[in-house]
């Protein structure tokens, strides 16, 4: 057996998994995406794709992790043969490559939390403050180190004493923070010239049914679902390694997906009504839809100004950035654990694997900390790469046999909700179809981004995606036998 660590209860696994799923994407990306895509009408495909993409993949990850009792590389090998370890390695690499710059983002959140507590960021001109922070160079690197250090320490402590203990505190606190912020946002008085928070509710929920005929709404909803829940990243697979063999798979996957979406809605209710309570209509819509540098517009550029203008604004700004920090750190913990698990499967002790992953993660994140263009490139390349990861999971299940996977790996668990044949349809038909549509759309956007589409060193070009994926895939495919031998043996480290 590759590990003797196990979460102490199903609740422990759930809070850890919710920590994995709820991240900065829920708090800063979701409100902007909803605002940019028609509000109410967007929420329908967004909810639909939770069940048609995210939940089936979460079920697959849980079953695979539990079946293999190994991280993502060994899990692919165990399921469909050692010759396929390279697929797991690509999935793991995509998530780790995201970890490198996600730690930088977590650092930004910590910086702004501290700045909110000291008052340094209250009422400032958002873009000037952001530019000043980035221009120091050493500050983003320092806070990136702090984020990696904090989360690395949690992972160092192990599954129960570290991840479970931290999650049981962080995740309920996160939901409470978001709920308080949402309640406050909805009860704000309207500033002179502003429409008031109820206009924000209308903006968020009012359905313009004609929007449902716009294919871009559906693509953005699917993209948000794919990115936000963590489905297909290998993270839930990693946590499932430490779960009881009898724990429910279907209900837990639905809980994680609905929990993730619950957090997104709470964040939207905290942000959008505040914007409409403070800013006149035209400016409110601009604040919500502006992407800003590295897509940080709403959180880091507008929030400092917005919260300064509401009663008790500094307190609620602290709450907002604290929620952002908690969300970022809980997701970063899961990403570090994914890397640590892979190296533990290869024979390293937890502590040695952690030092390797955390040090490597810090060093390889420095370019993103000091150069936002590089950051944006990595965000694009590996963000789209995640769709390939999700497809690899569906492909692996198809090769194993979809009905066989359902019957042998999912149904024997104590499922609160029975798994139906819809699972087979989702894996065989829906996910490959959704993947095809998404990858064609995103690569088309990369190819028409304004840069030379073939440029392998462009920021957001087809060339840079294919070049970087190609290099990684080639390396893993060539090294497959060695990777498989290292991660599939029974000599994996125990703590």
């Amino acid at each position, binding site marked *: 057996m590759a590990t003797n660590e196990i979460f102490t*209860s199903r609740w422990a696994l*759930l809070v850890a998994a919710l920590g994995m799923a709820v991240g900065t994407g829920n708090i800063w990306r979701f409100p902007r995406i909803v605002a940019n895509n028609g509000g109410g009408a967007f929420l329908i495909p967004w*909810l639909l794709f939770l069940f048609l993409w995210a939940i089936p993949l979460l079920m697959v990850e849980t079953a695979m992790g539990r079946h293999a009792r190994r991280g993502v590389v060994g899990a692919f090998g165990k399921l469909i043969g050692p010759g396929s370890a390279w697929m797991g390695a690509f999935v793991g690499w995509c998530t780790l490559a995201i970890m490198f710059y996600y730690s930088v983002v977590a650092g930004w959140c910590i910086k702004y939390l501290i700045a909110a507590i000291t008052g340094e960021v209250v009422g400032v001109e958002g873009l000037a403050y952001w530019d000043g922070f980035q221009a120091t160079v050493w500050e983003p690197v320092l806070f990136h180190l702090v984020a990696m250090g904090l989360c690395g320490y949690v992972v160092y402590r192990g599954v129960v004493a570290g991840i479970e203990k931290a999650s049981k505190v962080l995740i309920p606190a996160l939901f409470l923070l978001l709920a308080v912020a949402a309640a406050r946002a909805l009860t704000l008085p309207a500033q002179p010239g502003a429409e008031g928070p*109820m206009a924000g509710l209308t903006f968020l*929920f009012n359905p313009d049914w004609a929007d449902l005929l716009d294919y871009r709404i559906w693509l953005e909803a699917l993209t948000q679902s794919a990115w936000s829940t963590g489905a297909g990243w290998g993270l839930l697979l990693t946590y499932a390694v430490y779960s009881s063999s009898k724990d*429910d798979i279907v209900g837990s996957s639905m809980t994680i997906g609905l929990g993730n*979406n619950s957090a997104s809605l709470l964040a939207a209710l905290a942000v959008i009504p505040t914007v409409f309570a403070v800013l006149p209509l035209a400016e409110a819509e601009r604040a919500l839809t502006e992407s800003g540098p590295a897509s940080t517009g709403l959180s880091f550029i507008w929030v400092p100004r917005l919260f300064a203008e509401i009663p008790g604004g500094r307190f609620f700004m602290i709450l907002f950035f604290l929620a952002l920090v908690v969300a970022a750190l809980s997701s970063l913990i899961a990403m570090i654990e994914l890397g640590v698990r892979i190296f533990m499967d290869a024979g390293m002790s937890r502590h040695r694997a952690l030092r390797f992953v955390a040090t490597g993660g810090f060093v390889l994140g420095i370019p993103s900390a000091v150069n936002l263009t590089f950051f944006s490139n990595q965000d694009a390349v590996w963000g789209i790469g995640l769709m390939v990861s999700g497809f690899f999971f569906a492909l692996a299940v198809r090769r194993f046999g979809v009905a066989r996977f359902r019957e042998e790996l999912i149904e024997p668990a104590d499922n609160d909700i029975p798994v139906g044949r819809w699972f087979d349809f989702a894996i065989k038909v829906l996910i490959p179809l959704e993947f095809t549509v998404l990858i064609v759309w995103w690569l088309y956007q990369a190819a028409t981004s304004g840069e030379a589409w073939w440029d392998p060193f462009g920021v957001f070009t087809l060339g840079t995606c294919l070049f970087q994926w190609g290099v990684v895939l080639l390396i893993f495919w060539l090294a497959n036998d060695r990777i498989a031998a290292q991660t599939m043996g029974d000599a994996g480290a125990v703590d």
Partner: protein
Amino acid sequence: MTTSTVLMMVLILGIVWGGFAALLAVSMRADRRRTGGGGNGAHE
């Protein structure tokens, strides 16, 4: 707010928050049942 906005809000929040709360309650009940049975179940 219009009627359609209110209905949409109730529908979305009902499905998402209501579903999440219901499933959490089921999970906690299952955990209490297992704890009452004396352990966290078999681990392979």
